[in-house]
């Protein structure tokens, strides 16, 4: 008799393609995945608990460390929630600035997502370097705006920390056509590539129903064919003033998730162009009290590059919130992985994981 044995592989927490410190427990039959269990917690920093001992101004830098590839969007989420809770009005210029900044960061995040996905498929480093070259432009713009390259701490409750420095709007104006051109170049490398398509089409298929059941949001949900984008469906800031499309996929496979992100970059460029054109005059800097004593509770979610980022704040009249709960999109997106990869082989597991585009910072919080 031949002996039959299942092979258990511990993929991670130190592994080239687990995007940080994710630990996947894979049960294999040969190379076919029988069971996949994501274990998390290697990056846990008690951010939600820390929030209970910080005022909102003090807590703002901690949101940068959630989804560290989209810090501006995290800042925005917290600001909007507190503004909703305290009924604070924000000047139009600040709203427009926030849109521009958030969309720029969405592009930076998506560039990173699609290029690391290509890296996971073995297109070694070339797409990554192309995308990082373009992302660098955005980072430089952010550097001019707030002096930071990754953790910005730029937004404030009631506005932003400072107006655009002189010359930065010209930089952004230059950047838009540049990125369009470079995105075309990037797509010639991957989108129609026979090997890339063979590797990602019909791999890690996520049906609309499963996606909704698991609470998957963002590009991953839209790739499954469900048109849901908070910027359109529950508009916040001034998103209802802009003309842009919500790209969706058809099959919900890895390739769809890739192409939805690429198309979203183009849509974001459209939004930035419009917002920059209609940027109103005024003072965007917050003119509100720095100390808030929130009473009551509220929930607000925004469309982050990875999905819906929600902040749930309970205040008891103290300057610290009584409880601050973060709904991290990557957490829900990761939860669907084990349902997606059963029956695939290791290579496809890496492909499916890469296409989900998770960031461990916000999963572990």
């Amino acid at each position, binding site marked *: 008799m031949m002996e039959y044995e299942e092979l258990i592989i511990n993929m991670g927490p130190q592994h080239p*393609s687990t995007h940080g410190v994710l630990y996947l427990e894979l049960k294999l039959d040969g190379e076919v995945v029988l069971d996949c269990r994501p274990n998390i917690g290697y990056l846990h920093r008690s951010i939600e608990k820390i929030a209970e001992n910080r005022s909102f101004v003090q807590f703002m830098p901690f949101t940068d460390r959630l989804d560290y590839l989209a810090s501006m969007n995290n800042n925005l989420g917290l600001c909007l929630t507190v503004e909703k809770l305290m009924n604070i009005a924000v000047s139009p210029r600040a709203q427009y600035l926030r849109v521009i900044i958030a969309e720029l960061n969405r592009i930076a995040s998506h560039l990173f997502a699609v290029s690391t996905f290509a890296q996971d*498929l*073995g297109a070694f480093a070339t797409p990554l*370097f192309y995308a990082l070259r373009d992302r660098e432009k955005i980072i430089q713009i952010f550097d001019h705006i707030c002096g930071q390259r990754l953790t910005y701490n730029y937004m404030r409750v009631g506005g932003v920390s400072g107006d655009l420095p002189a010359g930065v709007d010209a930089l952004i104006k230059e950047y838009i056509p540049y990125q369009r051109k470079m995105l075309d170049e990037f797509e010639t*490398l991957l989108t129609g*590539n026979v090997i*890339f398509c063979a590797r990602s089409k019909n791999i890690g298929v996520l049906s609309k129903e499963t996606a909704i059941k698991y609470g998957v949001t963002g590009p991953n949900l839209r790739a499954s064919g469900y048109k849901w984008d908070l910027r359109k469906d529950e508009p916040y800031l001034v998103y209802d003033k802009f003309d842009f499309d919500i790209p969706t996929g058809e099959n919900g496979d890895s390739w769809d998730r890739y192409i939805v992100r690429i198309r979203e970059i183009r849509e974001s460029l459209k939004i930035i162009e419009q917002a920059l054109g209609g940027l109103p005059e005024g003072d965007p800097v917050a003119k509100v009290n720095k100390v808030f004593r929130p009473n009551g509770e509220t929930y607000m979610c925004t469309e982050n590059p990875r999905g819906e980022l929600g902040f749930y704040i309970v205040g008891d009249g103290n300057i610290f919130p009584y409880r601050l709960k973060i709904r991290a999109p990557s957490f829900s997106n990761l939860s669907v992985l084990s349902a997606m990869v059963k029956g695939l*082989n290791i*290579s496809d597991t890496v492909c499916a994981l890469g296409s989900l585009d998770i960031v461990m910072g916000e999963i572990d919080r």
Partner: protein
Amino acid sequence: MIAHYLPYLKLLLKGVCVLSFIAVSAMFLIWLERKVSAKVQNRLGPMITGPHGSLQSIADTVKLLLKENIVPSGADRLTWWLAPFFVTVPPVTAFLCMPFGPTFIVRDLNVGILFICSITSICVLGIFMAGWGSNNKYSLLGGMRSAAQIISYEVPLLLSALVVIMEAGTLSMQGIVHAQEPCWFFLKPNLFVAFVIYLISATAEVNRVPFDIPEAESELVAGYHTEYSGMKFAMFFVAEYTNLFIISAVAASLFLGGWLGPIRPSAGWFLLKAYVVIAFLMWIRWTLPRVRMDQMMSFAWKVLTPVALLNVLVTGWLLVAKG
């Protein structure tokens, strides 16, 4: 007395030349690959050690030589120790009948091409030994993938070489080069097909993108040589680049006219052609994603092998028709 030993001395000298060529060539290729990849990826690559980082490989070699020898616990020690040698020695041996020039060849065996093909396929043993001996699941998977891959692609590789042998009517490397004096082989349509098949299967033979499945970084960390460090790792590395040179040099000899060229030195032409093929393979490596294991296997058996067989048939007909 000396006259009696002279031929042997000459042979020995040639051997020493070839060996030092291999070492230098591997180091040069590693540097070249880093530079080519940097060029493709909008970077500079190594720039600090020597002009344009040209001494980087030497610095790396020194570092690797000085590194501690780490044996993983639970490793199958004998297999673990032998594996790097099984990977390194065969490609070096294959240089025995590599035609650098009309007279510049260590031994022009009358079964030259057969010898090269068979001796280089011993490498798979070493790779499998490394995968097995490491006591690491990633290495084991890498080793198994490698064994399957190399054995599969051996078939179309040999079938494409067979077309050349039929055309040239000899197995000797020099004979094949001489047969190309009227017309380089890759200019003939049936041999061009063989050339393409050869390049694809040779890329798979040396585990390069898009067939770098055994050492798929994003899946298997580093595949079969995950656990190797120091000089043993360097031996895998040198073997990889020596193999790269061999497949390119064989491609140059079989299809691109080997050392044939309008002016002397003929060895220069041979190297030039080999490096053109190498540059092409490097360009491919830094552009394409990786295929999946089963896709690669079905491509070898369902596409490449039938096409190669058909090509053999067509070549046979053409030769018979020609008389």
